[in-house]
């Protein structure tokens, strides 16, 4: 989706410039001050006619911001916000009229009811892997229709609507409208505070990672199911709260007005208009669109007003595709990035040389080292094609194990299954004595397994630093935000990428992106690192640098599994080598002895050819690091 943005120079924005500390506190302080100032207005002479207008503005800010928690942050666009809002409305309506509960008490219940419904929906929907993108949108839309029909046909409403005129409005201000103003202000403030806190938290960066690439996020250790569920619960709960307040504001609740398509469509538009990747985007969009709608209520130009609204929407999106806030942020971010790069470059230049220069101390691995990973009859089929057909593998601590074989032999599939990217069709995996095969991928990552992707898959809207920090946060190390960033700097220096810390991945070249994959994998502090053709596409000198890096990694105690086609690197690095062929393990042993076997030659070259071996073409000499 949206492939047009690749390397276009108009980089889409991510939460650039977020720092775990001062950024959030400053924003919260600002929000608090603003909220207090606004709350004081009704008492210091705000014209009464403004109370209801601002009520509407706060109401939409709360709705759009809460929608964005799941749909903007995690990318799961939902058309179901009307359902959560409606549950809130009806909870308050029914409790106040039929059970005589004081209005204020119904509000938390309204939020709770909506959150429960949202969580139930999410609990089921998020379990199904195929429910992504538009399928999720459809699901939420369908849920809204179902809910509306149930409410319309049961004693909850039954048709006549619920009339709340006898319910007392809490006297928070001098007028009823003033009280609603304050209630809505409270809801909007709550929504914004939640949005800011999440934005700056570990939870938030996990959500943004889910938006960019959910599968990779899961493999990096982000507990995607749980995070999406929490985001949905927060989102729906706040919507329910807003609904509860609205029930008394309109005082006459009917299904037709509550569950139409207008609300879900409007919150999407407001958030997109303002910018979905920023915590304040939806609020900006809400203010803009509400202002437009209210600006054209004079009878004389009712129709003209609609035309202007349409033109404004079109204009903003065409010229500011990241929304109002996105466009404004771009300028700021570019300045910050240049400054950051310049500062880091001074640091980084030496690092690359150092990394390249240090000699690799190659210690042969101990054949009696304990087994770290063991697979038994591991199998994986795709629609009948057996990519892995009963593979038994043992990986010992501290070794560098090569996985070789012709294309399609199952090497990458092996890595994908062990890391949890795919679910195994059969067999077992044991890691550090514990079974792994049916675990969710994020738990696999937590246990201490990390992998790189053959075609780099960084999170496109997170900076290089954030990409690596995420791994440190969710990998085996499970570090806090601040520590993770410090750790990330370390690994960026190690891989020579420190000078690009503030850049977005699509501004890196292939070599740098591959090293970003390294840094990401290492930041997770894995016990087992699986490298999937990490050298493909690199120039010879880049390959030398990479090999040196791998040696240093192993020297640090990490066990490495290494899928590769570049034979001289394999020969230089691997203690042992496994040959895969058509999903099965063909041979195992040292590089030289395995390459001499005729069946291996046949597998590679496809014919009987005595004497000729792939190994013959390569001299198993030491690879120069410089």
């Amino acid at each position, binding site marked *: 989706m949206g492939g047009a943005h690749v390397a276009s120079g108009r980089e889409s924005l991510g939460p650039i410039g977020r720092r775990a500390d001062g950024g959030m506190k400053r924003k919260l302080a600002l929000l608090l001050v603003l909220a207090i100032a606004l709350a004081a207005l009704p008492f210091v002479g705000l014209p009464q006619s403004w109370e209801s207008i601002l009520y509407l503005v706060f109401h939409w800010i709360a709705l759009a911001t809460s929608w964005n928690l799941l749909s903007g942050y995690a990318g799961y666009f939902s058309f179901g916000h009307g359902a959560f809002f409606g549950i809130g409305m009806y909870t308050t309506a029914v409790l106040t009229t039929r059970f005589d509960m004081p209005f204020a008490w119904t509000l938390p219940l309204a939020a709770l009811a909506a959150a429960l419904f949202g969580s139930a929906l999410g609990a089921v929907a998020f379990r199904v892997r195929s429910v992504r993108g538009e399928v999720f949108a459809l699901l939420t839309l369908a849920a809204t229709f179902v809910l509306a029909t149930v409410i319309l046909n049961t004693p909850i409403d039954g048709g006549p609507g619920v009339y709340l005129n006898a319910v007392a409005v809490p006297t928070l201000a001098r007028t009823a409208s003033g009280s609603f103003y304050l209630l809505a202000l409270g809801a909007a403030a709550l929504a914004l505070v939640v949005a800011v806190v999440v934005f700056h938290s570990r939870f938030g960066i996990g959500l943004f990672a889910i938006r960019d690439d959910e599968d990779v996020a899961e493999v990096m250790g982000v507990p995607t199911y749980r995070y999406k569920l929490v985001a949905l619960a927060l989102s729906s709960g706040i919507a329910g709260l807003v609904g509860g307040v609205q029930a008394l504001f309109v005082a006459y609740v009917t299904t*037709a007005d509550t569950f139409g398509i207008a609300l879900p469509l409007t919150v999407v538009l407001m958030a997109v208009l303002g910018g979905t990747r920023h915590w304040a985007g939806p609020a900006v969009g809400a203010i803009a669109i509400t202002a437009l709608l209210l600006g054209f209520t004079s009878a004389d130009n009712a129709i003209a007003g609609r035309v202007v609204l349409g033109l404004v929407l079109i204009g903003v999106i065409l010229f500011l595709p990241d929304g109002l806030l996105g466009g404004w942020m771009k300028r700021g971010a570019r300045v910050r990035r240049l400054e950051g790069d310049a500062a880091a470059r001074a640091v980084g230049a030496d690092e690359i040389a150092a990394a390249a220069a240090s000699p690799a101390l190659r210690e042969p691995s101990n054949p009696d080292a304990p087994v770290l990973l063991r697979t038994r009859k591991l199998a994986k089929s795709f629609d009948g094609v057996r990519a892995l057909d009963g593979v038994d593998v043992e990986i010992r601590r501290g070794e560098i194990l090569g996985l070789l074989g012709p294309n399609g032999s199952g090497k990458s599939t092996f890595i994908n299954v062990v890391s949890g990217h795919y679910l195994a069709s059969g067999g077992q995996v044991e890691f550090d004595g514990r079974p792994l095969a049916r675990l969710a991928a994020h738990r696999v990552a937590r246990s201490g397994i990390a992998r790189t992707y053959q075609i780099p898959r960084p999170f496109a809207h997170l900076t290089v630093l954030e990409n690596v920090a995420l791994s440190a946060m969710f990998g085996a190390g499970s570090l806090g935000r601040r520590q993770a960033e410090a750790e990330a700097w370390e690994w960026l220096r190690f891989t020579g990428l420190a000078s690009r810390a503030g850049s977005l991945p699509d501004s890196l070249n292939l070599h740098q992106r591959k090293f970003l994959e390294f840094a990401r994998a290492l930041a997770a502090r894995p016990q087992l690192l699986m490298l999937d053709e990490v050298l493909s596409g690199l120039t010879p000198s880049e390959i030398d640098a990479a090999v040196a890096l791998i040696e240093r990694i192993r020297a640090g105690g990490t066990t490495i599994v290494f899928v590769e086609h570049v034979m001289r690197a394999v020969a230089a690095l691997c203690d042992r080598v496994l040959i895969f062929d058509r999903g099965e393990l063909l041979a195992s042993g040292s590089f030289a002895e395995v390459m001499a076997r005729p069946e291996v030659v046949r597998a590679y070259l496809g014919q009987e050819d005595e004497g000729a071996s792939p190994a013959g073409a390569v001299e198993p000499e030491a690879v120069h690091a410089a």
Partner: protein
Amino acid sequence: MPFQRRSFLSALAALGLPALPVAGAHAQAAAAPTGTPVRIGGSLALTGPLAPTATIHKLVGDMYVESLNQRGGLLGRPVEWVLKDDQSKPELTRTLYEQLVTGDKVDLLIGPYATGAILSAMGVAQRYNKTLVHHTFGIPSLAKYEQQFPAWSMGPEPQVTVPNMVLDALAASSKPPKTIAVLTSKFPSVQFMSYGAREVAKKRGLQEVLFLEWDIGNRDFGPIAGRVKEANPDFIWNGVLGLEGNQLLDAMKKIDYQPRQHFYMYPAPGPMLKAPEAANALTVTIFEDQPPFTSTPIAAAFAKSFNERATQANLPDTHAETQAAASFAAWQIIEAAVIATRSLDDKKIADWIKANQVDTIEGKLRFNEKGNFGADLSKLKQVQNGRWVVVWPAEFSNGAKLSV
């Protein structure tokens, strides 16, 4: 009474006729109004799903205010209608009425279109002790504010009085029905009427052979029509709003079923006339563009003026009927109250309306029963030969009979 004479002369003036000398009175020329305008504020659904009917109310309002200013305005001052578009959204209605009262600081209020919006406006009026005269409130049991007054005089219990009227008319015809089917949409203002109809029918000994409810956004009326055809009732009570009546008739026509006797609650009047399958369809009305409704000069002037303006505005249906009349009557109530109390004081106006009867094109309206409703002035009209013909009660039917 001076009041009536003045209205008579004003009507003449509106018709473009010179004021004729009347014995014992001197002709009052309509003096141009002067001074700060009297501002009457309200909203209407000028855009959104409710717009089709709200257009009629805007037209009538414009018409009335213009004529009012020609006749000398209110209390000698020009009248200005401060109108806003609530986009068919009740929460916007509330906000706009608050703006009208606290921001624009209008002198008087007039109601918006349809029950949901009126409830919102009523809440605002209540909070600021303003009097609200409205024209299209469909659920009398929800009218709980003392200073609100309905111009559409359906009485406090229309769910009893209207079905009784309809069944009275049918019982007096040559083919009184024995079986009844009740079909209704779940829209609040029609649903309670349909439930009332079921009760009344049961009390009167009709056998209910079918009862169906549908959701407001329903598009496919085929299965419902099929079930009606199988049940084959003598009389169908259709609790419909807007186009639903036509959609039902369409669906029945497609399966070759012509209902024998059929009644529709709030159909869109124009489309009903144009469809041949709607022959003999019954509905309620409080005003029609025909005698005896148009016997008074004001009513005749109103009907003519509406016709002209509706044609000019390119509306497909140019005859004044219930909606337009209710709107006109609302303005009449406001004018009468202001003139009688010689003030713009909401409380005085409310007290006066409550204690008096107001002469409107619907007839004499009173407001002394539950919810400030009065008599049920509904009549029954029927589609006959492509025209709406009032058939009940006899005093208004102008000789026409209910066709079976």
